């Protein structure tokens, strides 16, 4: 098996990974590798057609796609090798990793490893939800990709579980395109997400938010037909008919590679999680700054 040597292996070519590459170069590292599983760098930014990106870092209001493109052009400065379509499938305690992609299956030895693998969305299945398991249930992130990247529609009558930022973005976008967003269901006594998003999406499109409530049951045999919503204060349950359930109930840092490599012990100092796989950031500018911060830490 081929084995390559690098100073820094960066796992993930989203906002955090790209910033980390710049930081590594500024720190003086020469041999830097970014491994990105998708065909191009940018991560989740590439499915964000809405604006609100770059206000902190660029002092401009960009779409996610614009932000990714703009940052990509900075990467030349880093001199990093960029392997797209390439997944890191294992990291090992001897400071090596196994990569798989268009270039084959190969090993990389490194001095430092930056984990920039982002976060995952929690699914409805991790919650106490009874009932059937029909089609028509997905996370807002999946829906965003289907709609913005693939040009497909996901549904007509939509309930959104949770009021996280990505949920608000989707609610606004769907409502703007004429899709009926029936309600967002929030267990707290006020909507989550950032105020800016609440104003731009929830309030601008009059999206109904059902507070202090959770979905307790899914109804529908093949395709979802509705959800049972329980009010946490009264205990009363209401049926909401819908043909699609999207979820925006939170994000979890994706550190599966670390868990597989160090199941019982702590993470050694040569592995540095940055961006959303360290903790989930509110805005991408924060992820970028987190990556750039490595200039002093790496």
């Amino acid at each position: 098996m081929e084995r390559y040597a690098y100073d820094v292996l960066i796992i993930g070519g989203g906002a955090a990974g790209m910033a980390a590459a710049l930081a590594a170069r500024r720190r003086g590292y020469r041999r830097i590798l970014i491994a990105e599983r998708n065909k191009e760098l940018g991560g989740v930014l590439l499915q964000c057609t809405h604006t609100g990106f770059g206000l902190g870092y660029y002092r401009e209001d960009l779409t996610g796609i614009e932000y990714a493109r703009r940052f990509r052009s900075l990467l030349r400065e880093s001199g990093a090798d960029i392997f797209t379509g390439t997944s890191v499938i294992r990291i090992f305690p001897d400071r090596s990793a196994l990569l798989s992609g268009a270039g084959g299956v190969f090993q990389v030895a490194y001095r430092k490893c930056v984990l920039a693998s982002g976060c995952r969305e929690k699914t409805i299945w991790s919650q106490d939800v009874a009932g059937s398991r029909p089609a028509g249930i997905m996370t807002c992130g999946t829906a965003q990709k289907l709609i913005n990247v693939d040009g497909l529609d996901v549904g007509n009558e939509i309930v959104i579980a949770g009021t996280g930022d990505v949920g608000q973005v989707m609610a606004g976008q769907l409502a703007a395109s004429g899709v009926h967003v029936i309600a967002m269901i929030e267990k707290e006594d006020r909507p989550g997400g950032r105020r800016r998003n609440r104003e731009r999406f929830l309030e601008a499109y009059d999206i109904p938010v059902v507070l202090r409530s959770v979905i307790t049951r899914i109804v529908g045999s093949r395709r979802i037909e509705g959800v049972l919503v329980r009010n946490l204060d009264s205990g009363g349950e209401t049926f909401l008919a819908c043909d699609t359930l999207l979820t925006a109930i939170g994000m979890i840092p994706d550190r599966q590679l670390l868990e597989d490599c160090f199941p019982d012990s702590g993470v050694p100092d040569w592995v540095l999680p940055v961006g959303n796989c360290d903790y989930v950031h509110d805005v991408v500018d924060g992820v970028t700054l987190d990556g750039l911060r490595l200039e002093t830490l790496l």
Partner: protein
Amino acid sequence: MEKVDVLIIGAGVLGCFAARNLSRYKLDIAVLEQREDVCTGISKANTGIIYQGYDQHPGSLKASLCVRASAGFQTLCEELDVAYRKCGLLMTSFGPRGDRALAGKKKQGEANRVEGLRILNAGEVYALEPFLRGGISHALYAENTFTVNPWELGIAAFENARANGAAFCFREKAVNIERDRGAFLVRTEARTFRASRVLCCAGMQADRLWETVGRPRIRIRPLAADYLVFDTQAGKWLSHILSVEPEEKGDGITLVPTVDGNILAGPTRRTVRGEPDASTDADGLRELKKKTSELLPGLPMDLIIRSFASARPNPYALEEDGSLSNGSILDFEILEEDGFYALVGIKTPGLTCANELGAYMTDRIIRSFETAPEANRAYDPIRKAIPRVSRLLEEDIGRLEELPPPYREIICRCRNVSRGEVVEAIRRGAVTIDGVKRRTGAGMGRCQGGVCMEKILHILAEEKAMDPRQVTKDGGDSLVLAPSCGSR
């Protein structure tokens, strides 16, 4: 009209294994399946335990098939290239009542000639399972108990039966059966089959289909069961199958370490009113969580990634006066009349015995012909599984390099499933997102398809030359994208 020698109704794990065993002979075999794929009903949702046979009454068909199945299980998995985990089963007790039950099971197992059963004391149990709650009295250790992914076993039998000449007819439901001069005419919506032997493996519908030709003798009362799945991170909490012989009356719980490193908790037992469906029950899920945390107190409940339900057939004898027997039928019950055979209400250990039941039914059917059918000389018991990147990662990293290029593109990142695996699954018969999931494991990880479902949707559309809007999650009307949506 299609003329076949043996017509099997239902392509669940029983129908597939019956077809596999019958294909040892020179027979025209057709398998009718109402759904679009194999193992979409009862077969897809159970604990996946391969029992040794201590739980069956001595002298019963169940006992003899189960013990034989257990002894031959590794060979079967090698022939069919199915992954299994030899994890062993610990049936734990918490006091004198449980201890007596364990001793009884051990004695029964020995009467069934189950080998290697041992009663362990508490110290020995905690040495095997350090995270188990305090207060254990003893455990019955059935070391040669295995787990499998149940659908993997059924799919392997299907592929092997098909390679040996059995014809599988999907989306063809038997809607009417009638006798025709020593044979049976089985009509589907599209066509009519004529067969001198019919083997009904139709799960929940087996009693109704039997009654189209035979006197009503058994009725199925569905039971529903709930299950919880914990993430692979929970895997370290458990290395053996654990079941509980409760001190008080009531159902225990079974915790299963799966082939893929998850923990499966379940089943609950609920009676179902009306048509059975696969809906989980809120109380059932609560009960499972409670019992799981009682048994493994350290296990974080936020590692739950999925819950699901299944309906299981529970057979009752129909008495002369039209009433049902008090208790359900304990043994495997096989109905037979003039060449029509029905497996009605096959439940635990049905998965364990699937291949043995197939062999047993084949034997009965073959003996019923006046001139015995010739052996199928081309019969090959070997089937090769789809190469799995995730499994090579555990077993032999070097071999990853030997796989063709599509196996290098990772589609499901929780489970490291590649494009090559997904494409091969489709070429072997997957037509839905869930069909791909059952064949590859894609979407079974902690993100539950959040990343890979969209990619699999496109691969399915591409391979099947269809619009992505026509792709279904699980057949029928289960469109992934709601109908009447257009492209923007």
